């Protein structure tokens, strides 16, 4: 499943489906269980229909009535003064675990058997 057609085409996996949604929604809209189910059924069906290695099947869903989200997706932002200075809007990379909730840090098992850290 992919929402970044150009990147998937470059990686060239054996088979893929492409959903034209903003990054972070590869499997559908939040809490729309019916849509998520349809998207997954279409994805599974592509496993049966794709015969040529490298095929990317576009899925026929639309994120919203207009495509304005595409204008701002991963574009350097203007600063608050309206100038052209851009900034990196990604979060800093940390070397410590980044918990969604502080409570998760306390709940985390330091010897967690399902957390695998491969060597290399």
């Amino acid at each position: 499943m992919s929402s970044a057609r150009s990147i998937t085409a470059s990686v060239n996996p054996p088979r893929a489906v492409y959903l034209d949604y903003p990054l972070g929604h590869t499997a559908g809209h939040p809490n729309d269980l019916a849509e998520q189910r349809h998207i997954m059924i279409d994805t599974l069906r592509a496993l049966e229909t794709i015969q040529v290695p490298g095929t990317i099947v576009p899925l026929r869903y639309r994120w919203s009535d207009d495509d304005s989200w595409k204008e701002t997706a991963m574009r350097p932002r203007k600063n608050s003064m309206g100038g052209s200075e851009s900034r990196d809007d990604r979060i800093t990379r940390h070397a410590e675990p980044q918990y969604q909730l502080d409570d998760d840090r306390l709940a985390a098992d330091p010897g967690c058997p399902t957390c695998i850290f491969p060597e290399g």
Partner: protein
Amino acid sequence: MTTESGSSEPVDYIERTRSQYDALGYPPYTWVHNTESPPFTPLSKPLDRARVGLICSGGIYARGQIAFHFKDDTSYRKIAMRTPRHELRVTHFAYDLEDARRDPAVVFPARTLTGLADAGAIGSVADYAYTFMGGIYSSRKVREVLAPRLVAECIRDEVDVVIMVPV
């Protein structure tokens, strides 16, 4: 900008990343670019008899597990496919997490797959899904360290197909 289907052209994230890196004064990002024909294994059985696995790169972990850090983190988590939604968490440095935190199924469709298995649309789901934090700069580490481990897990789980969900 309009195609035959009536929808506009896909966002070219490679071009946008290039512009973003230029604007920040970073050296150009080097995308993985595979030109050879990819290996292709046909589906070995009908979907309603197939065992389906899941691998997601959106930084999903379950409460009780160690969260991902963001500095070329090549670790992965093994998460029970039927983990209740309120125990799932999402952390990642490079995409808007708001909707994924509201409903993790948008980047971790385990609930969708188990629903299809329960309805008989697919044979079964694997007991576990695998997750990692996709922002790993070293494609060599992904290829030589992480990917072989995930492949080994999937073989051990005896899945027929794996759904892969990048972000």
